[in-house]
């Protein structure tokens, strides 16, 4: 009797252990799949590099919960990103999942990973300096930005708003090339 109980307990613990390791394998697979999803407007970086995936966790009903943050509230790429993320997850071995829109805390350009920043720079987009948390800092953040091609500091702002909501347009006066800057928010 006591042996059976002990055996049952062992197998229950083993089952829980197996379920936990299965969940963590699915979570790892989900991250892996999401790492291949590119931002449609900046194909150089993945949505994981940009810090758009807030979490991947096992939900109570067995489905994985994936939290996705928009960069800018009106950014049309957000819809495409959500669809691409769903497609990538559906193709991989993650089982049931749900993609949730996460508004709070609001996405910050500080969440772009070091790898993401390196890729942005290599792509010709200057990565954001640091987050600006109030109006005074936004007004002050007009310091010179180094050209991603020739590193000259002799650059000027052409347009505070660029081809996408997250970028501003600049020009290098040394090599005369235009370049984009990822805005700090």
């Amino acid at each position, binding site marked *: 009797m006591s042996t059976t109980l002990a055996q049952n307990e062992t197998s229950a613990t083993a089952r829980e252990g197996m379920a936990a390791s299965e969940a963590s394998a699915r979570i790892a697979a989900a991250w892996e799949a999401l790492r291949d999803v590119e931002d449609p407007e900046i194909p150089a970086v993945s949505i994981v590099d940009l810090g758009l995936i807030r979490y991947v966790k096992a939900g109570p009903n067995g489905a994985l919960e994936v939290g996705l943050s*928009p960069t*800018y*509230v*009106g*950014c*049309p790429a957000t819809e495409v990103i959500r669809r691409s993320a769903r497609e990538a997850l559906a193709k991989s071995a993650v089982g049931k999942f749900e993609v949730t829109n996460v*508004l*709070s*805390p*609001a*996405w*910050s350009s500080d969440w772009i990973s070091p790898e993401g920043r390196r890729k942005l720079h290599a792509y010709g987009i200057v990565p954001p300096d640091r987050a*600006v948390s*109030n*109006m005074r800092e*936004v*007004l002050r953040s007009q310091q010179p930005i180094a050209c991603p091609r020739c590193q000259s500091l002799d650059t000027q702002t*052409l*347009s*505070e*708003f*660029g*081809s996408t*909501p997250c970028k501003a*347009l600049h020009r290098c006066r040394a090599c005369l090339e235009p370049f984009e800057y990822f*805005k700090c*928010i």
Partner: protein
Amino acid sequence: MSDLFRYVLRLGDLSLVLGQRLSEWVGHSPALEEDLGLANIALDLIGQARLLLSYAGEFEGRGRDEDKLAYMREQGAYFNAILAEQPNGDFGQTIVRQVLIDAFQLELYERLSASRDERLAAIAAKSVKEVRYHLRYSSSWLVRLGDGTAESHARVQTALDLLWPYTVELFAADDVDQRMAEAGIAPSLAEVQAAWSARIDAILSEATLKRPADRPHAWHGKRGQHSEHLGYILAEMQYLQRTYPDARW
């Protein structure tokens, strides 16, 4: 109609109507950079409106989503302050209207981020990050135009004199505003006004513009009473959904 529903619609409608107005500049701005700037601001505003109208619709619980609220409401059921619907005029007039509303949204959203209503606080905290860039853009243009040539100075001063009376409505607190403030959901409009006023004074002084005197003002967009301009905006914005209801593409 519940207080929260009406309050959220006021904010959402302000963003939606101003966003729609600004988008009229697309392809017509004085320079490509300004086309990009105004279009990007319009896009952010419409993004804010989507979040706010979705929330209003869910809260109401009668099955109206953001699209139903944007495309299927009559003029009298829109609750934006009528400053937002005033015509674009020349570029200077658009910039003046933008500075007045950007500074209002900045001060309002900064405080609304601490709202007791979590959803509203999240929307405000997200939006205020974008509004700071709107105000940086609009206020730097106002300084350039005001402190520019005699012609540009005269034009923006005229626009400021024309639009100033409409700012009174932004801060005219009615029962809804008061109850929302008492519930800890909305900030006190008196506090928002004091902060807005100080910010606007600093910008106007740098732009060498004269602040017009406050005058009593009779329009009440926040109660659904609008100027003639809103009807034209809605006619254009709602045309497709009203002609082909539930059309998708």
